[in-house]
């Protein structure tokens, strides 16, 4: 990956009727990057993708592709291809005709097209399917054909709009590996839209968390998970305990009346902050050893770990642990300083409102 900006979205705004979908969005996508737009439905992620693909024209702002302004270029003149959510295969054509569609329009030679079809089908592990009809294939197979149909055109960027949304869990996991492999073999840029945080964390180089038309945070999966910038990101990515607290001084935060040592600095003295503690980062110890003492109120077996709720300091704490603590038992809560993530409180009322709705 290099720092070359392949696509640059500058001050993009878009509304449908009275609904503002994107507001002054700025985002750049680097060459050979797997970038995921992640957020709940209605956050503007699909609209962003459709603006890049050329299916929507923004009300304001520019789409720059390799230094050229392509904001108003129709989709057929852009050097990128899209994989649609519901596959959008041409049901009146065979698999081979589907894959050949873009190449025939570009008037490639028959031999070239034939080679490309064989190559693409091999790439998506569906060799020998040339003469089948799309509706005789399973959902996962159809989605792979849709990918094959897109990549034979050798796009610089592949746009994927929740391509795994319609598949079942097992298939979705298999396809995640498949997509990572494809991305590495093709060496092109993927822009991926999903509301599934697990998908985003597994596949992406960069995750863009969006909500209500605004970008909440951009970062690597590790950044987003370990150091969420605000309560929305913390809440949307994985389970978390978000606690309104006070930053006493550098490296010391007061949570529910108890001082916890932490590693964050620069928030000032006695400033209100939000604290995120991931449930797997909480250690349950004997009551006298913990910083806070409490009682286990519920216990669920989740397969890999137990999910427990602990009443301590006047609130419920979500705890994930491989060690079992029976309901009703007295426990102490202990958190390592580097597992406490401190976030600024939202400043404006607007930001506040955004979070309340979540």
């Amino acid at each position, binding site marked *: 990956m290099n720092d070359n900006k392949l696509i640059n979205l500058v001050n993009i705004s878009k509304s449908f009727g009275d609904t503002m979908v994107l507001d002054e969005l700025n985002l750049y996508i680097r060459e050979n990057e797997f970038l995921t737009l992640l957020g709940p439905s209605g956050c503007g992620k699909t609209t962003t993708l459709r603006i890049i*693909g*050329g*299916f929507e024209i923004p009300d304001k702002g520019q789409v720059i592709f390799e230094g050229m302004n392509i904001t108003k270029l*129709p*989709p*057929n003149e852009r050097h990128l*291809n*899209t994989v*649609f*959510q*519901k596959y*959008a*295969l*041409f*049901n*009146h*054509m*065979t698999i081979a005709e589907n894959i050949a*569609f*873009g190449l025939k*329009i*570009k008037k490639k030679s028959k031999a070239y097209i034939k080679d490309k079809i064989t190559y693409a089908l091999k790439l998506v592990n569906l060799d020998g399917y040339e003469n089948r*009809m799309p*509706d005789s294939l399973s959902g996962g197979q159809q989605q792979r054909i*849709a990918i094959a*149909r*897109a990549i034979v*055109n050798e796009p610089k960027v592949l746009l994927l709009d929740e391509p795994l949304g319609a598949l079942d869990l097992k298939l979705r996991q298999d396809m995640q590996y498949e997509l990572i492999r494809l991305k590495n073999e093709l060496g092109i840029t993927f822009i991926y839209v999903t509301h599934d945080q697990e998908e985003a964390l597994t596949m992406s180089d960069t995750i863009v968390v969006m909500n209500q038309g605004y970008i909440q945070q951009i970062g690597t999966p590790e950044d987003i998970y370990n150091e969420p910038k605000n309560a929305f990101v913390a809440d949307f990515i994985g389970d978390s305990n978000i606690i309104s607290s006070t930053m006493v001084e550098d490296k010391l935060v007061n949570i529910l009346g108890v001082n916890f040592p932490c590693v964050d600095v620069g928030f000032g003295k006695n400033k209100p902050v939000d604290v995120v503690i991931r449930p797997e980062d909480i250690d349950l110890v004997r009551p006298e050893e913990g910083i806070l003492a409490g009682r286990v109120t519920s216990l669920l077996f989740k397969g890999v770990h137990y999910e427990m709720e602990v009443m301590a300091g006047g609130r419920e704490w979500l705890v994930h642990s491989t060690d079992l603590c029976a309901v009703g038992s007295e426990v102490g809560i202990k958190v390592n300083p580097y597992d406490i993530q401190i976030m600024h409180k939202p400043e404006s009322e607007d930001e506040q409102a955004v979070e309340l709705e979540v």
Partner: protein
Amino acid sequence: MRIKNISSTRAVKVPASDTGLQISKTNKVKWLSYPYILWMAGFIIIPLFMIIFYGLSNDEGRFTLENISLILNPVHKKALFLALELSLTSTLICLILAYPLALILSKFKMKSNSFIVLIIILPMWMNFLLRTIAWQNILERTGIINTFLQFFHLPTLNIINTPSAIVLGMVYNFLPFMVLPIYNVLIKIDKDIINAARDLGANSRQTFGKIILPLSLPGVISGITMVFVPSLTTFVISTILGGSKIVLIGNVIEQQFRLGNWNTGSGLSLVLMIFILLSMAILSKYDKESEGNNIW
């Protein structure tokens, strides 16, 4: 191995109870279809067999092909060919008018769908005869159009009692039957399929030719059937707008029945039926060839 056996017997049992449920459900549904089956038997199947019987027998009820061979009578032959010509013309005109209309209508937002369907079927709220008679008045030598033209000292039109008037009547009356099925197919085409074609480099003309048109063919074909068949068999439109000079095969058959020649009328009807079946066979064959498999 044991576990496998158990699970396999389970797997067999479950669907068995499932199908049992389905049978009882379909039985209930079957009951509901009995009135229609009775209706169909009484008013479609039996009359059809009566026409076949009359068509293939003479006054004394003996088998003969004479009624059918009456189509070779020059007057009948001429009426049949004229009917074919006019109905094909009106079907073609309907198609040319309806396809762009359906295409434009299908691009409106979903909200106004029922309104669009309403506009299309609105003319059908008025009686078919009344509408045709209205056209007679409009087209007459002293009708509205000619009065208007005379007022401006323009040459008058003599459309009434010509084949053109009949084609006009057919197009006017049957156009909705062409628009609706095409419109219905067009609105069902997923927007993303069109987007996908554009995404793969097709301009709007290529997208229409390679995607929209082939996907809408089933609608076109049912539209053609729904216009061609009533046009071919009509005798009302030709009587009202064609006067007594223009005789279509429908008029011939009607006359035969009026005169009490049930055998001749039935025989000629059978010939007409053969033409209709033939046209439907050609259409469905074309449908299958172009589609590969059925969308509907």
